[in-house]
């Protein structure tokens, strides 16, 4: 036979039993050509460009899903950071008018996204790691309103980079914006504060079409924690080197499916194939959990001592296997540990196995940072800024992307529900001691030296 029965059944088991899926096919679209000094013109052009470029995305993805029998869970669009388009018309506007204009563009994105049938559109974004422009200030100020008045729009702000350091003025601002957006907690699930934001990340909420990208491009995010967990469970008696080898082999297979789907959909849409993001994306389904993989490795609960080492082994093995499977790898590429979106992570918080401090430690060896973390509603904006600053420092010093998607909602001990893929999570506690004097100094933390690291 062309394939052995075992091979065929392995693939079918991965999909049917172990929840293997393509988590997202994300079409990046360049909107720079939509610039105008008239916000009505910009909004119309943005709408038209998205609809024209993405109108076949959902039907083609559905057809490929059926052809290969592999679910493609999300179809999304990522666009040029909108702040650059706001720059073109904002110069003589009042702050209030600029916010209204930003919201108008967000609504235009939302309407185009709904028209083409995608679930999220990313790129309501600004890059302010070194400083603000008129457009980025206006965009950031408008984020709470833009997220409240739209459903599909996702926003991200890059406040730090290895080359430029951490813009603490932006970090202060984001603390306030997150607090303000949290009046409707789901808003905060659609907002990421980044260090070293990748230009080709297919995952929400942080996807945008970065500089250097082609006119339109397909980037693919895979899933597969359930498949890896199953391999780890089967390798019960292996030492960790052998275990890493088994994970690598399986990661290769998972990433190959991403490569197949990515290339075919790009070719059908007549656009470039960009990258596969090798991140293992969990979902709230029991078993589709990165935390459960660490537990299958032998930790009683994710978050206990050894979790950082286990996660580092996992991330590295997934990258090594995946890198061989695809010609182009990019995005965030690691293992996601979003608390509410990962059944095992939420459980680990519930039983007291993991706290914010351990989560932060774990983010130093995976992507993408403190993700979908719920903190008490009364957490101050300065404390949120301090949490962001810590996470940025990890990203900046280690030359990797880190993000913070934090949701102030409820009080310690509460469970907050988001629904769907966003899941549910207990509220984590934050430190009792203040950080605002440090945070409010503002300015820019200089870029770290890249040598003399001994």
């Amino acid at each position, binding site marked *: *036979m*062309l*394939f052995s*029965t075992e*091979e*065929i*059944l*392995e*693939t*079918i088991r991965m999909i049917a039993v172990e929840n293997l899926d393509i988590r997202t096919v994300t079409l990046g679209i360049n909107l720079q050509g939509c610039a105008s000094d008239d916000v009505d013109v910009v909004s119309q052009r943005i709408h038209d460009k998205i609809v024209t470029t993405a109108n076949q995305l959902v039907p083609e993805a559905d*057809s490929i899903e*059926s*052809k*290969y*029998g*592999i679910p493609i869970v999300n179809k999304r669009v990522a666009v040029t950071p909108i702040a650059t388009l706001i720059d073109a018309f904002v110069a003589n506007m009042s702050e209030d008018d600029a916010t209204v204009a930003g919201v108008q563009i967000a609504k235009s994105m939302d309407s185009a996204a709904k028209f083409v049938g995608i679930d999220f559109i990313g790129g309501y974004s600004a890059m302010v790691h070194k400083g603000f422009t008129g457009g980025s200030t206006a965009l950031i100020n408008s984020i709470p309103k833009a997220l409240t008045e739209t459903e599909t729009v996702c926003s991200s702000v890059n406040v730090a980079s290895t080359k430029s350091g951490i813009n603490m003025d932006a970090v202060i601002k984001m603390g306030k914006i997150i607090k303000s957006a949290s009046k409707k907690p789901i808003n905060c699930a659609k907002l990421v504060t980044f260090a070293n934001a990748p230009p080709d990340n297919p995952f929400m909420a942080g996807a945008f079409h970065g500089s250097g990208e082609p006119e339109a491009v397909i980037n693919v995010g895979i899933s597969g924690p359930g498949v890896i967990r199953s391999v780890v469970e089967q390798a019960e008696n292996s030492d960790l080197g052998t275990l890493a080898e088994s994970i690598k082999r399986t990661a290769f*297979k998972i990433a*190959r*499916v991403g*490569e*197949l789907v990515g290339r075919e959909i790009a070719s059908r849409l007549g656009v470039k194939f960009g990258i596969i993001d090798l991140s293992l994306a969990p979902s709230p389904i029991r078993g589709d959990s990165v935390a459960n993989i660490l537990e299958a490795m032998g930790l009683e609960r994710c978050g206990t001592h050894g979790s950082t080492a286990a996660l580092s082994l996992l991330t590295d093995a997934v990258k090594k296997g995946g890198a061989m499977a695809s010609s182009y790898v990019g995005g965030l590429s690691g293992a996601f540990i979003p608390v509410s979106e990962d059944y095992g992570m939420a459980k680990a918080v519930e039983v007291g196995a993991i706290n914010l401090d351990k989560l932060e430690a774990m983010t130093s060896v995976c992507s993408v940072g403190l993700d979908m973390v719920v903190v008490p509603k009364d957490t101050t904006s300065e404390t949120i800024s301090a949490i962001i600053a810590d996470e940025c420092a990890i990203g900046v010093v280690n030359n990797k992307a880190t993000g913070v998607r934090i949701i102030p909602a409820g009080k310690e001990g509460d469970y907050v529900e988001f629904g769907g893929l966003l899941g549910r999570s207990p509220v984590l506690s934050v430190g009792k001691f203040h950080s605002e004097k440090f945070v409010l100094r503002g300015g820019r933390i200089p870029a770290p030296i890249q040598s003399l690291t001994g």
Partner: protein
Amino acid sequence: MEKERAVITVNGADHPGIIATITNVLADMNINIEDLSQTVLQDLFTMIMIVDLRGADITELQGKLNKAGAKQGVRITVQHENIFKYMHRV
């Protein structure tokens, strides 16, 4: 035209007529069976077929086989061969 194959997997409780029903659908669509393996384990029927689509539309085949599968009380999956090639061949 490059040969395009699909892998058909059938699972369900064993009873007479499963193969006949499926092969009828294939014959009607002028689809050629290239390879076939079948096992019955504890009354659970598992069959894997590799077929040459000969220009037939895979979505149409899936639709017809899903209907046939529902009548026979078996689960039928039809997947283009490339997913197996990509996963299992370097």
